[in-house]
């Protein structure tokens, strides 16, 4: 069966006056129906850009999709007209944004904001849409009578629930959740994740969960892709990544999490900083920070290597046999 969403060698650049930002550089990934993919990476790795390109909502100018293809349910989204895209946005693919404080329109009642998306995609009367909007509110745990209130009357966690209600109101096939819990308190985070999980199972929605929190990934995702400087460095099942992490960057990410069992004085961060996206290094993008980097890494772009079925890694150490690398 063909995947629900397939990114093929997608590249996105921002053409700014300070230079060209290579935000996404040839990423490929697949999401099947109903499954949850975790897209992990540091701030600036290109995760949000990738998600916005799927909806074709990149700020243009300066953002442009310069290469590759995005196929959704077997059809290329890049060939769709703006009108066809509008039918997809909010209807079949919807998005939850990072900051719930600013994601809702301050001058429109929340009930109307939910009803709007239903009215756009389902052919029903206004009254019916409003009734369903209130049902959605109840579904995310907000009393229906609060539908006539404005966003400023809600707390951050409540606002994110409203945003989730908007995103899921039309039972989309794919949900792009861009750091949906980053701006929330830890206790609220758990509730919101739980809510997304529940609704996703109920509505059979596939999800791309964008996050920099590996704990969140472990809890919610079945597949993981690790992004660095606009490339997917490693991807695979949850077990592949968490138990058999291969790429030095992924390993570094896990090592930087402090352990409860060990008593450590210092955290172990990955040395160095994310490269400047207007001047990415030659060869492997991670080589300046990689403890295993050698001469070849500076010049050769590592190809994608399949370590085991579904477990892909982009590192020269795994080219021509994984055993050699494992010995080190």
């Amino acid at each position: 069966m063909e995947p629900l969403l397939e990114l093929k060698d997608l590249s996105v650049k921002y053409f700014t006056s300070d230079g060209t930002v290579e935000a996404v550089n040839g990423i490929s990934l697949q999401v099947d129906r109903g499954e949850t993919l975790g897209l992990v990476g540091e701030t600036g790795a290109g995760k949000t850009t990738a998600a916005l390109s799927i909806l074709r909502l990149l700020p243009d100018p300066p953002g442009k999709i310069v290469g590759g293809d995005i196929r959704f349910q077997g059809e290329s989204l890049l060939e769709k007209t703006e009108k066809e895209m509008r039918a997809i946005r909010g209807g079949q693919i919807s998005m939850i944004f990072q900051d719930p404080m600013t994601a809702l329109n301050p001058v429109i009642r929340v009930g109307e904001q939910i009803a709007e998306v239903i009215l756009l995609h389902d052919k029903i009367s206004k009254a019916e849409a409003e009734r369903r909007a209130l049902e959605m509110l109840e579904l995310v745990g907000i009393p229906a009578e609060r539908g006539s209130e404005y966003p400023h009357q809600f707390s951050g966690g409540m606002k994110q629930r409203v945003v989730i209600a908007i995103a899921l109101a039309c039972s989309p096939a794919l949900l792009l959740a861009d750091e949906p819990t980053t701006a929330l308190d830890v206790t609220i985070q758990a509730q919101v994740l739980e809510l997304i999980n529940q609704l996703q199972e109920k509505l059979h929605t596939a999800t791309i969960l964008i996050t920099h929190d590996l704990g969140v990934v472990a809890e919610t995702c079945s597949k993981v892709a690790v992004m660095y400087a606009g490339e997917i460095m490693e991807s695979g099942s949850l077990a592949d990544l968490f138990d058999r992490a291969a790429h030095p960057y992924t390993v570094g990410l896990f090592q930087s999490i402090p352990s409860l069992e060990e008593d450590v004085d210092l955290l172990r961060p990955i040395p160095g900083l994310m490269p400047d996206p207007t001047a990415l290094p030659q060869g492997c993008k991670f080589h300046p920070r990689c403890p295993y980097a050698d001469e070849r890494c500076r010049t050769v772009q590592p190809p994608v290597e399949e370590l085991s079925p579904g477990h892909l890694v982009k590192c020269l150490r795994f080219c021509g046999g994984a055993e050699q690398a494992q010995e080190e």
Partner: protein
Amino acid sequence: MAKYIIKNALMVIPTMLCVVFIIFTINYFTPGDPVAVFYDFDYTEEQYAEKAAEWGLDQPFFQQFVNYIKNIVTKLDFGYSYYSGKSVMSELTTRFPVSLKLGLISVALTVLIGVPFGIISATRQYSPLDYGVTFISLFFAAVPGFWLSMIMILIFSSRLGWLPSSGLTSWTCYIMPVIASSAQYIASITRQTRSSMLEVIRQDYIRTARAKGVSEGVVIRRHALRNALIPVVTLIGMQAGAVIAGSAIIEAVHSFPGMGSLMMTAINNKDYNTIQAVVLLLSGVVCLINLLVDIVYVWIDPRVNVR
């Protein structure tokens, strides 16, 4: 909501009282003798005392002040013009509607032209259209109204003979004063709408709207415009006050019988009662417009009500 409006409406009363007191005091202590001006400096002691008593000018300051307010509140009587001897109120009733009409047309024109062009300019940022609108609005923002008046009279009255250059004999007499008094405001409303719109359009909730599949036109009308109008309404309110108050210079250039020219004549003739009445009326108009702006705020921005 009703409570909010009543509260704001009641605030007008102390404001107006302060205005009356300040104007009255300034006028009282300003040198110049209205009685002397009335007789053109040619009078006998008796004539002087008689006129001063008739106008109540022989009474102490505080008594005069109280009488003045009492007459206004109970009889809508602003006293007599020291210069013409006519009732100030009768002068106001002929002048004020003219200025009000001029002001309202100007404000309507400002909103109807300024806001749409601001939106067009913002939604097509950096397009030739945007540059065109920006250039024209900067030009008109820089040109003083009276200069525009003179140039228009030169072209449309003297050269082409299309429009009457002065007076108020038909509706065509409104055309040039309206353009002259609104051009600058149209320009600044356009600029304000543009920048406000550009700011709003970058907000996250606009992206949310787009991600819902809302069409671009609806994004602008339903999601962006209401938010962008909040600062614009403030500006419109301020300008409405200024325009209705009457631009003295523009009215003078066009010999337009409005409040502005009444004010100029009154000042030149030390016609205290008229000056006081005009200033009072204009402060009242400004207060009412502010009240209106406050009400519009609540209607546009639900967050205001809470405060």
